[in-house]
């Protein structure tokens, strides 16, 4: 067999092999190097898979050669490819940038264990995306969650501990709800393979357990995806986590749960349950609107830089869900596109924050007043990423907002005008909160003498690479757009 046939499996197997080795590496520099190399390797595998998907290949892999539905099936299509790129890319960028930042925040002797947890979190997230088996997804989900609790709690800030406890409680409730849902479906269909489930749900005579299952799965995954109003675990976890962990998790963790949710809604349930489409118009759409408006409004008044961006993440989840809730090709394209574009925008913003944190102990807006003079490059990257978050033409954020607004306008009538207004108001609020950062950094005099120096070249260069990716994908959006269209096609293809 050709090694490229195994790419889908290697995406996670490499990580699971690396994790125990990294625990044994005592020297922290070695552990960092091994982790970064492994992460880059998975990034390369993700790129190879994406290229394959672009060439029209549909990766299907049977673990241990047991054919589906008996064995575990792995599957990579356009939708998974977008997520894989975001996950492995975010992890690699965060690790490369984290060399100095992590030294500052994590004790040297605990670093190998921390890196092992990082690799496991990465393995879990990548595993969720490639698996086509409902129970397997649950296991990967728990691997990634347990590891990310460790990552979030790894920093020096003691306030991370209550935050991570909350995260653990909510994460476990979400995963358990998902487990109940999967159990109920298994009870009615006798299968755990997603594709097989889709076929067999047709034949289920009594649909009520499946409806209950749909409810449990939706709420459980919405909880893990931090969909408003189930987001309350998110702001504190992101704020008090070590800075590069925030880069990693903010770029991809919640989106992976959305991915599973969309898979279930469009592949398994959508056409098989009577009345299921109501879920989109009467459940997802209102929640998405609330998420955009309320979370952006909270971000407006937030004084802490990281927490402001965390609230903005809650709002961005709203945009992604809004696109999906339209249930159209254009809407889903916009949704998947925003997953990708938000990952690079928020990733580069948090990287810039990590640069600032190299010099500033506190990250409230008042603490960083006047920092632009001392750190012009960091602030330059932050402003560029901020423009992308707002959706200024020429940046990646503009492309996905453009697609989203076109999708909304397709709906026609009053609802189209209302939703467009919501998107525009949300973007305007983003202008205001990004402007508040700019105002403090550039135009406010420093309250105390600033001793800040520009961040080390290692972290700064990565920040700029990711920030420039915002420009690149704003001008050349072909890659994410093609992938998103493939994904939307696949998702809508299951609806007659």
């Amino acid at each position, binding site marked *: 067999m050709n090694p490229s046939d195994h790419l889908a499996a290697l995406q996670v197997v490499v990580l699971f092999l690396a994790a125990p080795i990294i625990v044994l590496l005592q020297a922290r520099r070695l552990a960092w190097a091994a982790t970064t190399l492994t992460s880059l390797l998975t990034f390369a595998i993700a790129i190879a898979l994406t290229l394959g998907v672009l060439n029209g290949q549909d990766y299907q892999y049977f673990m241990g050669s047991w054919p589906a539905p008996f064995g575990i099936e792995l599957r990579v299509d356009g939708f998974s490819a977008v997520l894989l790129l975001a996950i492995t890319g975010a992890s690699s960028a965060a690790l490369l940038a984290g060399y100095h930042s992590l030294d500052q925040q994590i004790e040297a002797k605990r670093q190998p264990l921390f890196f092992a947890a990082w690799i496991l979190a990465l393995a879990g997230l990548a595993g969720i995306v490639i698996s086509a088996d409902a129970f397997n997804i649950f296991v990967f989900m728990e691997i990634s969650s347990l590891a990310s609790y*460790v990552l979030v709690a790894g920093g020096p800030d*003691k306030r991370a501990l209550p935050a991570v406890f909350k995260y653990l*409680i909510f994460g*476990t409730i979400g995963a358990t709800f998902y487990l109940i849902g999967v159990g109920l479906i298994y009870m009615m269909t006798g299968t755990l393979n997603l594709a097989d489930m889709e076929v067999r749900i047709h034949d289920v005579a009594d649909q009520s357990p499946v409806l209950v299952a749909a409810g449990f799965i939706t709420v459980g995954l919405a909880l893990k995806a931090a969909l408003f109003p189930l987001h309350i675990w998110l702001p504190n976890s992101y704020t008090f986590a070590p800075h590069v962990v925030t880069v990693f998790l903010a770029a991809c963790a919640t989106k992976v749960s959305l991915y599973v949710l969309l898979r279930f809604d469009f592949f398994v349930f959508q056409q098989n349950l009577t009345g299921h489409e109501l879920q989109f118009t009467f459940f997802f759409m209102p929640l998405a609107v609330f998420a955009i408006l309320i979370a952006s409004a909270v971000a407006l008044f937030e004084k802490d830089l990281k927490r402001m961006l965390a609230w903005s993440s809650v709002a961005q989840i709203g945009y992604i869900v809004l696109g999906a809730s339209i249930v159209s090709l254009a809407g889903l394209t916009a949704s998947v596109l925003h997953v990708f574009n938000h990952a690079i925008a928020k990733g580069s913003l948090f990287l810039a924050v990590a640069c600032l944190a190299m010099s500033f102990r506190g990250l409230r807006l008042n603490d960083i007043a006047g920092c632009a003079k001392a750190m012009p490059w960091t602030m330059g990257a932050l402003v560029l990423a901020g423009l992308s978050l707002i959706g200024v033409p020429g940046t990646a954020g503009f492309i996905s907002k453009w697609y989203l607004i076109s999708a909304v306008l397709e709906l026609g009538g009053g609802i189209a005008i209302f939703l467009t207004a919501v998107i525009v108001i949300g973007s305007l609020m983003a202008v205001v909160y990004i402007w508040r950062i700019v105002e403090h950094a550039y135009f406010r005099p420093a309250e105390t003498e600033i001793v800040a120096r520009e961040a080390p070249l290692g972290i700064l260069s990565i920040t700029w690479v990711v920030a420039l990716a915002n420009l690149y994908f704003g001008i050349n959006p072909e890659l994410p757009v093609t992938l998103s269209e493939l994904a939307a096609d696949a998702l809508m293809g299951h609806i007659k």
Partner: protein
Amino acid sequence: MELLGYYNYWVFAILLMVGFYAVIVRNNLIKKLLGLAIFQSAVFLMYITMDKVEGGTAPIIQEGVADQIYSNPLPQVLILTAIVVGVSTTALGLAIIVRIKEAYGSIEEDDIIAKDRES
């Protein structure tokens, strides 16, 4: 009678809600975590219940025995994994509580929130 016939599922639902209630209402972090453990155990019961086939035996093929009804072994295997997940979640939760106690000197949620406000 039919409703009572599902008594295992009733126990599942009641345990689930008992656990959920404890998670939401209790102020003490250990009690919250216990509630979470009950919540998870309830789901184990649901999986174990659904694999039982009336009159079914262990799924071992014997010579000379035809038309035997077997219970479904798969949910038990699945739930074994979920039990391991549950144990590790509880262990990690307890570890975090120990560190919270070290950092804040309390495991009551109100105290912790109050101390965070001060700083």
